[in-house]
């Protein structure tokens, strides 16, 4: 236990002391929140575009932010693997479970703080634009997004373990684009329908945004919240298991 905490603290410090983390994980999502709100103001009501309204935008941006937590997880793991820092730790009593939890725990905390900040800013924006959000909805949405955070962290671990410091960020940016597009963060697939909706529904990202949005609206229906939430939770479990297995296998191979 003390090894996990020690390693988590180190990882947290490494990330929080890198200015890039703030730019990507915090500044960028918040800027998007502002820009899209301004954009929304210039969309005529008759267009029926609802995706940029703060009640939909807030949860979308929260999921968008989580994709950058994935990027930083991948970066941290791949950087450690590239140098001999991991080799040094392999020679200490650290075991693979210590590494896996030690990487995931700080990322989960960072992700929760990130979502909380995005929601606080959303709440302020909602007062300004005059469609006040329910703070309880935002809080429940924050909790709803925990499995989603774990899923993205799992993706990050997986890419960071399998790929180099150079290729991992590239692969993450594919997930970031896919996730924000097919996760219906910037457009409304339910309104589009057709093949597009089917593709979105075949991937987990859509369910992240859907369950988080439903929670913001306190709209806890089976279709709107329960099923999407369960799908995301199942994906999170799978990714956590797969990524920790892959990490352990990689560690074993390194020590061969």
């Amino acid at each position, binding site marked *: 236990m*003390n*090894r996990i905490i*020690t*390693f988590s*603290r*180190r990882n947290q*410090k*490494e990330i929080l*002391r*890198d200015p890039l983390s703030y730019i990507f994980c915090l500044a960028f999502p918040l800027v998007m929140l502002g820009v899209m709100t301004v954009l929304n103001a210039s969309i005529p009501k008759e267009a029926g575009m609802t995706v940029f309204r703060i009640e939909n935008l807030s949860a979308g941006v929260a999921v968008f932010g989580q994709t950058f937590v994935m990027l930083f997880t991948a970066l941290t793991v791949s950087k450690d693997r590239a*140098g*001999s*820092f991991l*080799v*040094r*730790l*392999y*020679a*200490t*009593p*650290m075991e693979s479970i210590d590494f896996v939890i030690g990487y995931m725990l700080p990322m989960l905390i960072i992700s929760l703080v990130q979502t909380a900040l995005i929601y606080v800013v959303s709440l302020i924006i909602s007062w300004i634009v005059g469609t006040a959000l329910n703070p309880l909805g935002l809080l429940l949405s924050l909790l709803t997004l925990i499995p989603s955070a774990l899923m993205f962290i799992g993706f990050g671990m997986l890419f960071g373990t399998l790929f180099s410091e150079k290729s991992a960020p590239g692969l993450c940016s594919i997930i970031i684009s896919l996730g924000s597009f097919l996760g219906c963060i910037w457009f409304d697939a339910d309104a589009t329908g057709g093949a597009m909706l089917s593709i979105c529904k075949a991937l987990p990202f859509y369910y992240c945004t859907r369950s988080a949005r439903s929670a913001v609206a306190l709209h806890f229906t089976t279709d709107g919240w329960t099923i999407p939430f369960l799908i995301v939770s199942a994906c999170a479990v799978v990714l956590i298991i797969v990524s920790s297995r892959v990490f352990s296998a990689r560690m074993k191979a390194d*020590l*061969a």
Partner: protein
Amino acid sequence: MMVETRHLCKKYGSKTAVDDLNLTIAEGELFSLLGVNGAGKTTTIRMLSCLSTPTSGEAFVSGCNCASQAKEVKRIVGISPQDTAVADHLTVLENLTFMADLYGFSKEKTEQKVAQMIADFRMEEVANQRAKSLSGGWKRRLSIAMALISEPKLLFLDEPTLGLDVLARRELWRVIEGLKGMMTIVLTTHYMEEAEHLSDRIAVMISGRIAACGTLAEIKTAAGAKDLESAFVTIAEKEGAI
């Protein structure tokens, strides 16, 4: 015996990195592995510190088998890898504390060990500087101090003075000499004068094999040479490495 290997071999595909290595290193000894690039020094150290599994043969550290008793061995050894391995965004103090915490030291003991390392390595002026911003020499010192903080009985220093200037190298020699007798040290190097200056015993490694092993005087006598460098060249010629 602190270290004992029996017919230790490591093959990577068809390439033999370490070939039938039989070594014994006594407790408290400073033992140098001297060899050119690719001689198998790092591979040997990796096997002895449970970072690599031998293809065949056995290795023992303080009587524990490196393959089957890795947990015990890891408690005994400390390693300073060939490439400096420090956490970039942590300060010197934090790096040292981090390592001590991994071994589960009490708060008092951690503080005391960290203070001791800072003093022993004369790192007071950089103690609160992030590792990222240290010069190569300071990073290397920190990397070695991190290996020492767990109070290892067996310390591996893989090319500790690589890339250091003359003064920094002398300074590090002073530190290593200060450690002599307190623990067993296995050091790799391709600098003759370093092996000459520091070691109790030297093994000359050529293409994965020990070509000569003994005290400085024994190696010089056996090769009929007046210094280690000419002895090394004679041995390498005999082994067909040149």
